[in-house]
């Protein structure tokens, strides 16, 4: 890559990246008690004595609480993608911002869901916006279940040729063609290598 297009972007502090806040305080675990119970044969043997736990699990898994896919999760998936020209992640460069991610998911596994992401290029004539968008698309294609439709848009008023880029990013044919290009794919591989 020749001279960087935007040599001096403003950078977000790493601590300031939005993260999933720890839900409440962890309950005080009675570690001592658990340890004692763990070695009481009566305590552990009794429920098991009714033969092998004969696939009781269906009831168990129903009790499992569901974590819905939300915008923070999407953010965590894509915020650590590296920018193609800076040694920084898209999150740090504020190309991706939490409020610009919308998830429409009913939670029903049989109906379509959608993710809409609006990216903010670091400067209005950033020619790498399409590459960044493609990187995000590849990442999400790999990480989201197939029922999700992924829409990637340039945030309104942040790019000179907003419409063109939007069209290019959401054109199935063109995305598929791009993914056939080995060289492009290896650039994207590098961008995704920093994902956590």
């Amino acid at each position, binding site marked *: 890559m020749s001279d960087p297009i935007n040599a001096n972007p403003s950078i977000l*502090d790493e*601590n*300031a990246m939005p993260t999933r806040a720890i839900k409440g*305080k962890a309950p*005080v675990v*009675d570690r*001592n*008690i658990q*340890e*004692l*119970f763990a*070695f*009481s*044969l*009566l*305590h*552990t*043997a009794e429920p*098991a*004595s009714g033969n*092998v*736990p004969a*696939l*009781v*699990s*269906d009831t*168990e*898994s129903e009790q*499992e*609480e*569901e*974590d819905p*896919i939300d915008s923070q*999760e999407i953010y*965590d*998936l894509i915020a650590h993608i590296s920018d193609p020209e800076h040694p920084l992640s898209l999150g740090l460069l504020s190309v991706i911002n939490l409020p610009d991610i919308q998830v429409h998911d009913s939670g029903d*596994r049989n109906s379509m869901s959608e993710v809409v992401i609006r990216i903010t290029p670091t400067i209005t004539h950033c020619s790498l916006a399409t590459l960044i968008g493609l990187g995000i698309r590849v990442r999400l294609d*790999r*990480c*989201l*279940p*197939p*029922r999700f439709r992924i829409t990637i848009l340039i945030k309104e008023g942040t790019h000179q040729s907003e419409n063109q880029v939007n069209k290019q990013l959401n054109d199935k044919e063109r995305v598929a063609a791009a993914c056939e290009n080995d060289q492009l794919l290896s650039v994207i*591989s590098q961008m*995704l290598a920093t*994902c956590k």
Partner: protein
Amino acid sequence: MSATTETLINQYLVFTDTNEQEATLVVARLADQVALKQLTLLQFIQTAGDYLTRDDDAIRSRAILCLSQMLQTLAARDATIFSKQDVSVLVDFYLSKFDDLVSHKATLLGLSCLVDFTRFASTNVAKILQTLEKEYAPKKNLAPVRYLAFDILARLLAKFGSFIARNLSAEFATTFLHVASGEKDPRNLIASFTLQEVIGAKLGITDEETNNELFDVAFCYFPISFTPPKGDPYKITSEQLKTALRGALSSNTAYAKDAFPNLIEKLTTTNAKVKLDILDTLLQCIQAYTPEAVQLFWLSLWNALKFELLHNELSMFSAEGVATDDDETRVYVRMFEIFRAMAVKLRQCLESGLQPYLTTLIEELLPNIEPEHKLFKASMLILTNVAEASPEAFNYIVEKVFVRLFEDVNDLNVPKQRNLIANMGFFLNAYANLVNALNAGEFESDFASNALLSHKDNILALLSKTLMSSSSREATLRIATIHQLVKLTSLPRFLILEETSFILQFFNEVIIADDAAQTCSAIIDGYVAISRDQHKVQLLLDTSFPVLMSLLPDSDETMSPAKSAAEILAILVKMSTNRQVLEMLCVRLLNKLEQAIDSSSSYAYLTLIVDSIAEAVFTSELESPFLTDEWLKNLVPQVNALVIRLSQSGRLPSDECYVNLLESVGKLLNLIYKYVSVEKHQQLLDELLQFGFQTPSADIALFKWSLAAIDKTALMPNSTAFAEQLIVLAHASDELTRVNYLQTLAIVVNKFTDSGFLTPLFAMLTSGVAATETREGIQSLEIIAWITKGLVLKNDKAADPFLCYILTLLETPYGVVGSRCLEIVICDLELFAKPKKLISRVVPVNTRLLYKQKFFESVVPQLVEKFGSAQEIATKKCYLIAISLLLKYVSREIILPHLTTFLPLLLQSISLIPDNEIRCASLTTISLTTNELPELVTQHLQTLVPALLDLSEAKNGNSEKVRLEALRCLLLLPNAVALTKIVPFRNSVLRRLEVAVDDKKRAVRKAACDARQAFYEIS
């Protein structure tokens, strides 16, 4: 006599070249004869004379070599044997042989040995030098022969150094130039460079022409790029060559006018290794040459080096240290060192050496000293490194820089503030380094009123203002500020105590109000650093300790809003690295505990306080161990009193939380007792046994932990009866208390009983186990398991019948219980943990080093075999559960050799047995195998991959943990297994993981994404 000599010489002529060992023996015998005066030199020459002058090249050169080697042996044995005359004759003999090319090796060897003889006269030196220069042709000889010529010169210089320096320096230099020019062999080059280093340093050659030639003969090799050839017998490294050449080049100031320009010219290289070599050489030259030489060249060096520094980000340097250690970083570090070395050297100049240098630096760099300037960091780094050189440099630079830094410090935006503060740290480091390098006298005379001190108020004001007025969201700025404040407190002879106390007060305010974890942890690190300073710890106790303590609520209903009690306790614990602080903490926390009990706080809060005390004691014992004998008098009774107070406070003692609290108190007591000196342990045990054992009581937890800390040599009277009583009490009590009694029993069996009483007990217990599973049966088995644990720990043979019995259980209806018994036997419990050597010399548990290995090696093969032969699924399952449970507790070194047998079993177990705990255990072992023995896993990919995929889906009762473990296992495969083996699975894995990326649990989805990404990258 001479007949034997002749035989020996003949033998030598035959053996040399063919049988070196034999030849050496012959030489030794000849030397013997000479040494014992049985053979004179003359006789030898007469006998060998014919050979020495023979026309046949081979015979003649061998004969001379024989003489030379004999001389070599003699020189080592008795260097005084020859008279001055003898030596001179021999020297002349050898010198006359230089026209004989084939004998050069022998001739040079002979000469170099002759130098070592005591009576070798200085008159010979000139002759040898002359002949070497005129008649020896280095290019016609092989490398080992040429080495001998260097050797002669080195020996001459070592023996007649001052004589040569006075009379023959020019001749010596000429001869050396003749011998050294065109040399290529690495070993000879090292000899040559070493020699030249002495020539440059000792001979005082002033002739410009000669010095030019000397410089050239060495510099033509610079920079050395040398890769040692394979099988080099001398093991010469590139580093040795470089060091030797550096020594040669820096040996004489007269080389300066050639060295500096030439080295600077070479700096254009782009190879970091070469650049480093050049800089190292420059540095050494600056340090070795006279100040006047450096005075001539500092400007060109400065101009040559500054750009590279100014035009780089230097992101690896921060006030906290250097982040990386690669060649690039070293290049920069070396440049800074060069600037510093020049400042050191120029200071030694007779007149005005340093000032022009400093003035130039300031003139060029001062304009960059602005927080937003691109060259700010680089300029600061250069200036601080030069400032570190001497008090004069420091004062001058600090004066100039700080005046500019503080010019408009009041209206800086956040990035500027951050830049300013982070880079100011370099000066604080320079101050610390400089003060540490000065001795007390120098400090008083040169540095007591230094420039940084006069800016102290400014620095403090800037930092404190930044810390107190910045928003808590500016974490990096605040952290940088805190780091600098902490550094200020650590600077030698800088702050007065009141100022440190102010800083602590700022810290207190921030830590109470700020909830950014990293900011707080920076402050805690600051507290810890101050607590380690003997002079300042009192300040900490006076200012910070009470503030934090007052934030702890008396009862958990009145929590302070900003920080939870747990967080404050964690801070206090971290501060208690110092014993003084620790004891203060213990007293205060116990008082707090008392208040909390009286205000009926929850058990959780009480437990938290007790755990914090234990944690503090533990970490501070870890840091610097001390004895707790004193604590028996005050602290321990106070703890016991609190427990009694608690039991009288009218709460439900059967509450699980109460037991939990008692366990915590027990652990605290255990910790304290372990550090009571071993002599007091018998008395401690006697006192413990006063505890009432008539009725079952939850208080057994305290007794259990205390007993577990008692030294194993203490004696327990009536231990057998006591053990039996424990069994009775265990039967009669509720579930948690029962386990406590059983663990106490295990401790007693482990430390205090002899195994005699076990046999009848065994019979009694096993008879209580009925054919079908009953409560009584399980209770008996529990007792057996815990007794076995006590025995297995000390590798006692008495454990064998118990173990056999447990193993046979696996095929009975008690199978599952039996496998859990095995778990009890092998599990790691804090109660039986063997601490590293304690300062009290207490050994609280009777355990053998390799008991686990022994247990594992004897039990596991049986289990594996029986698993194979078992018919029923249920039985198979029991064995498998047993194996998985054992694996949980055994370290990987022990498992590793068994993995080959295990893996098939584990593969069966994850698909066969729908038990999540077993699946997790098996998956952990499979992960381990994948990392340690990928080849083994490769053989089983056909079964493993589908099994893992099955487990990654939320069906068949796979718990979240199982799904996670399975996905982690999958994630490992692409990197562990050969590409060709894993590629066939790529598409099926990618497709089937679509289910896992839609899992209900977020953590599972994340793991699935990672695994999928890893498989996508395979191609």
